[in-house]
């Protein structure tokens, strides 16, 4: 089944949340409406109505304080909008702009075909200016997860990777976070999954390993 069809099926089955976005079928039965979870209870008149998946990129680019949201798992999605999507395909496209690949990653996890890559594999395959990131110590890597990842920092994804196949992440808010924002039934949400450390983390790992080397 195609991703868009599975998405439609999931929404029909009660899934209504991904990250900071609430999803609901339109009352006329055609398509979907999505908005910020904190705007769910607001009168539609209070929201800026947008149409079509292309608007998702505009909405998700800047945080309210004006900074560029280059990691989409940030808890900084702006409020005040309602996006109308006319099909499951448009819903998939919009969600892939807000939370890139998140729906597909979740379906892959359900199917048992999600490939998780541990941090050492990720760092060891870096070349060029990021090659130095592989020198980061285990202790430094554990600290970095707690300094970079998790809802306290820039990301609300559920971390699936470990340092390596036998070294789990140390217990912390970042390693415990389950990828769902807010107190809702977990079965009604698409969790945001982190299958390998992102390139922002790699860039930070490079800095941290350089700092270790100069100590």
């Amino acid at each position, binding site marked *: 089944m*195609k*991703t868009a069809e599975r998405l439609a099926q999931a929404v029909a089955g009660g899934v209504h949340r991904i990250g900071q976005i609430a999803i609901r079928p339109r009352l006329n039965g055609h398509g979907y409406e999505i908005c910020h979870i904190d705007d769910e209870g607001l009168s539609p008149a209070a929201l800026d109505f947008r149409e079509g998946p*292309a608007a998702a*990129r505009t909405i998700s*680019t*800047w945080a309210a304080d004006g900074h*560029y949201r*280059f*990691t*989409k798992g940030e808890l900084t999605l702006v409020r005040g909008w309602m996006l109308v999507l006319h099909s499951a395909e448009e819903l998939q496209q919009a969600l*892939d702009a807000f939370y*890139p*690949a998140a729906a*597909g*990653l979740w*379906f*892959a996890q359900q199917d048992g*075909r*999600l490939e998780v*890559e541990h941090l050492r594999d990720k760092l060891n*395959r870096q*070349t*060029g200016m990021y090659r130095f990131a592989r020198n980061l110590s285990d202790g430094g890597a554990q600290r970095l997860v707690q300094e970079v990842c998790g809802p306290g920092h820039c990301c609300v994804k559920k971390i699936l990777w470990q340092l390596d196949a036998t070294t789990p992440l140390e217990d912390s808010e970042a390693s415990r976070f389950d990828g769902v924002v807010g107190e809702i039934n977990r079965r009604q949400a698409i969790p945001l999954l982190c*299958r*390998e450390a*992102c*390139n*922002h983390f790699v*860039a930070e790992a490079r800095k941290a390993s350089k700092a270790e080397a100069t100590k």
Partner: protein
Amino acid sequence: MSFAPKPRAALLIVGHGSTENPDSSTPYFEHADEIRSRGLFAEVHCCFWKEEPSMREAEYMIDAEEVYVVPDFISEGYFTQDVIPRELRLEGPSTRRAGKTWHYTLPVGVHPSMTALLLQRAKEVAPDARPSETTLFIVGHGTGLNQNSTKAIRDQVELIKASGAGYAEVHDAFMEEQPFIAEWDQLATTPNVVVVPFFISDGLHSYQDIPVLLGIEAEPGEAASQREVFRHNPHHLRGKTLYYSSAIGTERNIADVILDQVADFDSKLHEDR
């Protein structure tokens, strides 16, 4: 060239992206939107080196079993030859893995059809400048790190010279190697000068660094979307009339070059069979 639709295949546009500047990835999304709007592929997606989705995440967005991967880069080099094949686990022009076939095309910037886009952009930015009184500069970064990007620009300069477009002079020029774009007024002997940056996006180079080298700006400015560096043509500087274009990759018709690369890939595949 008319493009034969591929209703069962996906197109994956690969871009660099940026953690500093969202304008960097805007062209990729626009190229994807343009191709999507034409209904030529079952799916059109983007993925990035510095933004999300990453290249390794991209496959989880794709339903199709056949995927055309087009690097939206201006030249062959480190990214197209090392990083993208490594991240997408490509083993050659076509790679079969886990039920999918991945076709890897050449980057957009090396396609001969870029020449027409450069000429079109030069005409748009300086509609009143007679080519016979105008020097056209195609500008790149230029470093020892990637000779291919300077080659791509020099190739385009030769193609433009041979095109019959009628420009008095056509030059390659670079930010960090000779001939230096900072010396544009000495390199050009004509009263009019048109400068087109040979980059995919309006990143730091095209909206900050090159305007300073040209003398349009005294200091590096803000992000392109927040300012109007490209909208004040012409500039009367150093005794000449200067027209400065935004990066060639911001041209919506790059979508056609992406399709040209896919079509060329298929032609080559058929030749090899």
